[in-house]
């Protein structure tokens, strides 16, 4: 905590804010890619503290939000119809599928469990040999090593009743997709610090160079975010477009090679569907053939048809930064955290839910 409190020092925050105000000379739009940063911005009231010329755009960086509808339907089906213990990270449980969420499936009697590590799921599989155990392996590059490790561990331990339902999304291709969208006008990016802890910064250099955008790898504490914003603005004001590392206390240029090794052992890169956005090339992980016995989509027969998204939900535009949550006609009216039309209203990291909870746009 002492360590964390240093990154919440109000005096230092004021200094950064002053410096941001003194540096910015014209309007800039900066996207924080990660939902954790969106959460930090709104939870700490930073958005209203920034000068009017700085507009923060909330990116697609909530893996819970972008998990395809069809995959949630599959998870619900497995939990309800098969002899499955469905294990998941907590915030996946409330995300609505086309019919119901995992939380609703749990209420109907499905064995759905919240875990903090996929290795716990392997243990559950060992303890319940008469059941199939499926871990809903959702996340960015950040959670991929642990999910991959669970597969390797199950394989080495001879655990046959374990599989993962993988929905990993990768950040660099998402940044490219956002920049490539004709409607989006983003001047600079805060890249997700946690992701770079694993993958390093190297993937960002070609993006920054090609698209001429500053990318600052940024942490999640309030001072991290403020410093990241200042670094982006300094580059923009000086017409620079480089990759900088605000989160140097954690992130190394090469990332974590051991974690990358286990990811590559289990996963290969594939095209990935992003809920609300669509397919982005090379933006996800699929389980390699070597481990397909642990791939829930191959192991179990699950024929769930693709269901359409709610047409009134503009989550794709919100996640690409084209629109703000309050520009949606449904925001806070038909779409609330208690009755979400789309995923960004569900996860606490989702831009819509974060606005709803924290910005005071709507009465609870």
């Amino acid at each position, binding site marked *: 905590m002492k360590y964390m409190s240093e990154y919440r020092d109000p005096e230092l925050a004021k200094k950064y804010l002053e410096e941001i105000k003194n540096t910015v000379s014209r309007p800039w739009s900066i996207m924080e890619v990660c939902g954790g940063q969106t959460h930090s911005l709104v939870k700490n009231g930073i958005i209203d503290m920034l000068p009017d010329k700085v507009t923060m755009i909330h990116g697609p960086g909530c893996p819970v939000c972008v998990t395809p509808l069809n995959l949630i339907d599959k998870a619900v089906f497995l939990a309800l119809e098969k002899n499955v213990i469905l294990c998941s990270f*907590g915030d996946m449980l409330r995300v609505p599928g086309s019919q119901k969420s995992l939380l609703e499936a749990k209420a109907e009697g499905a064995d759905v469990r919240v875990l903090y590590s996929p290795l*716990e799921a392997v243990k559950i599989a060992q303890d319940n040999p008469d059941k199939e155990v499926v871990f809903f392996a959702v996340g960015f590059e950040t959670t991929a090593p642990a999910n991959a490790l669970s597969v390797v561990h199950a394989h080495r331990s001879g655990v046959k009743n374990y599989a993962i339902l993988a929905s990993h999304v990768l950040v660099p291709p998402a940044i490219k997709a956002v920049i490539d969208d004709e409607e989006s006008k983003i001047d600079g990016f805060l890249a997700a610090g946690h992701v770079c802890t694993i993958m390093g910064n190297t993937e960002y250099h070609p993006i920054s160079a090609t698209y001429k955008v500053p990318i600052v790898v940024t942490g999640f504490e*309030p001072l991290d975010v403020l410093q990241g914003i200042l670094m982006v603005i300094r580059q923009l004001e000086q017409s620079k477009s480089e990759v900088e590392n605000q989160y140097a206390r954690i992130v190394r240029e090469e990332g974590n090679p051991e974690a990358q090794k286990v990811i590559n052992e289990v996963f290969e890169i594939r095209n990935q569907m992003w809920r609300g956005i669509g397919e982005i090339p090379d933006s996800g992980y699929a389980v390699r053939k070597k481990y397909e016995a642990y791939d829930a989509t191959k192991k179990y027969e699950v024929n769930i048809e693709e269901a359409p998204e709610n047409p009134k939900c503009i989550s794709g535009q919100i996640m690409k930064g084209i629109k703000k949550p309050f520009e949606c006609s449904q925001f806070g009216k038909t779409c609330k955290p208690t009755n979400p039309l789309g995923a960004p209203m569900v996860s606490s990291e989702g831009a819509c839910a974060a606005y709803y909870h924290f910005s005071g746009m709507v009465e*609870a």
Partner: protein
Amino acid sequence: MSDNKNLRMQLQCPMPQLDFDVITLGHGSGGVLTNKLLDSGVFDLLKNDILEERHDGAFLELNGKTAFSTDSFLVSPIFFPGGNIGELAINGTVNDLAMCGAIPKYLSLSFIIEEGLPVKEFWEILVSIKIACENAGVQVVTGDTKVVEKGKGDKIFINTSGIGTIHPKALIGSRNIKVGDKIIISGNMASHGMAIMSVREGLEFDSEIQSDTTNLNHSVSNLIDKFGSAIHLLTDPTRGGVATVLKEIAQSTELGIDIFQKDFPINDQVASACELLGLDPLYVANEGLFIAFVSASEANAVLKTLQEDEKGKNAKIIGSVVDAHPKQVILESAIGGKRVVSMLPGEQLPRIC
């Protein structure tokens, strides 16, 4: 909490010699087995003149305005760091009465037990109930026991109802809250919820986080003795945490509330555990904590009195009542930003990263 532990070690309550190790459906039948369970355990342990009457209800004498409250307790696991469901059930209703400005006197105690509960565990719960009653100065005067089939309960559910007479100097009610009132919190936030989570989810933190379950009636009574009508409202932020309680009050009074994150009392380990799991301590459940709305002129004196009490040693003023932004709770973050505090749409779930 710690005094409970010491008492438990001193208490000479050996488990009675019984010819059964687990509770079965027969123990809820009302027949021989029920009597065996009650006679050898509950009645002996919790004995008092009113309970000894063994009638269908209790005969009580109460003078003056009376508060009446009920609550049901279901917690998994039933034993957790710092307590168990038994003391929780006593403290919970005692505290509900205390929040009304009442001096709790008599409780009812009803068990719904799942078939298969080890008698040893039931006994341990009963002993905790006895100690909690002694600490709070209340008596169990009537009760009930039912047993449900295996799989139809979660080991044990407890309902307690309680009555107590209103303290003669108490003038408690949300209509008494005024602009300018200070909001005092009696101790560290979020300990109970995180203690439960640490065992329920199999999380192992470096240091054990303890539930804050305890009775608050003596502390509250002391404050009302000294400050009377300067205490405008008392409330305990149990489920839904501090945020939910404050939001409810703002909505019902149509007043605004400002709170300051820098002033929140919270144990370092609890704060770290919340960070780790992505949970906001403002929404995490408490058990041995109360929030007092106090007139501004007396707030510092109330705080000082509270801090002299072992249970209130970490008390802090965390905010005040304002006429700006009616019905809304506004939090000033540690770095000086402001945001609205809303109610949770459902259970708080740990974030993915």
